[in-house]
């Protein structure tokens, strides 16, 4: 069976995405990520964005925040510890990115999750593979009564 050029391109881009999913906690620069796909930086960013709907940098950041959300829900670690564990190099950028993606600060998120009572009964693999927020689902919002609606998490009932 022949492999169509488009499939080959997608396989290469996936290798770069997999690298980010696997090694999000390490320092990953764009050269290393593009290199995983066998691309130059410029063509890589465009091609990745065309395929996955966001830039590699945004994807990596979303993956780190998604992993941070899991740790905030389940691990007995401080926000600062979690920030470095998932690959951010400063607490300021972690908090800003987190708020931008999730809608609330990391500590507010944790309080809310604890109040809600423990982790959801979904296998972690599904959380890993399906919880990278899509652009439309990215924003959480705070309702008038102060309740936080995390739209990404609200998909939990739809396997």
């Amino acid at each position, binding site marked *: 069976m022949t*492999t169509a050029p488009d499939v080959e391109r*997608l396989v290469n881009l*996936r290798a770069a995405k997999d690298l980010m999913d696997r090694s999000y906690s390490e320092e990953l620069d764009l050269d290393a990520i593009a290199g995983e796909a066998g691309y130059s930086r410029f063509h890589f960013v465009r091609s990745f964005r065309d395929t996955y709907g966001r830039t590699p940098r945004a994807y990596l950041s979303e993956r780190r925040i998604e992993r941070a959300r899991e740790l905030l829900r389940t691990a007995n670690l401080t926000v600062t510890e979690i920030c470095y564990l998932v690959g951010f190099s400063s607490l300021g950028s972690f908090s800003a990115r987190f708020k931008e993606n999730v809608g609330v600060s990391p500590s507010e998120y944790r309080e809310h999750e604890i109040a809600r009572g423990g982790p959801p009964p979904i*296998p972690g*693999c599904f959380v890993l593979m399906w919880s990278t927020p899509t652009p439309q689902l990215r924003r959480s919002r705070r309702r008038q009564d102060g309740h936080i609606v995390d739209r990404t998490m609200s998909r939990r009932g739809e396997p």
Partner: protein
Amino acid sequence: MITGLSHTTVWVLDQNSAKKFYTEKLGFDVRDDTVMTNEYMPGTSGFRWLTVGPKQQPDLRMLLAEPKPPMVDEEAAKAIRALVAKGAFGAGVLDTDDCRKTYEDLRKKGVQFLQEPADRPYGVEAVFRDDSGNWYSLTERKGR
């Protein structure tokens, strides 16, 4: 009453490569590898029925199918191939009696992991991809 699952389909990009991956890397058995013929519908002949399964579960057949006619039309085939290549499909959860040891074994054989073994409320779990891009959970379930 439904009594179980006997066959399931996994879309793969290349059956020869998939057969090698599932047998040589994962240690699965080949259950069937045969080409079907249909003299009344010439366009549908040549369909390769390739199934594999874990040694410990002899009644399960995973059909490693290339997306193409007659199973799906050309347009659907193209779309499925792109989704497989992008890594969009998860093909299931595989049980293991020792996730960390199996992870080491598979990693040494060159299997690409997305997640190292991690403790979860339901057991120890790692995530890897097959050679086409389908992801699997590798789980050592608690209390089994």
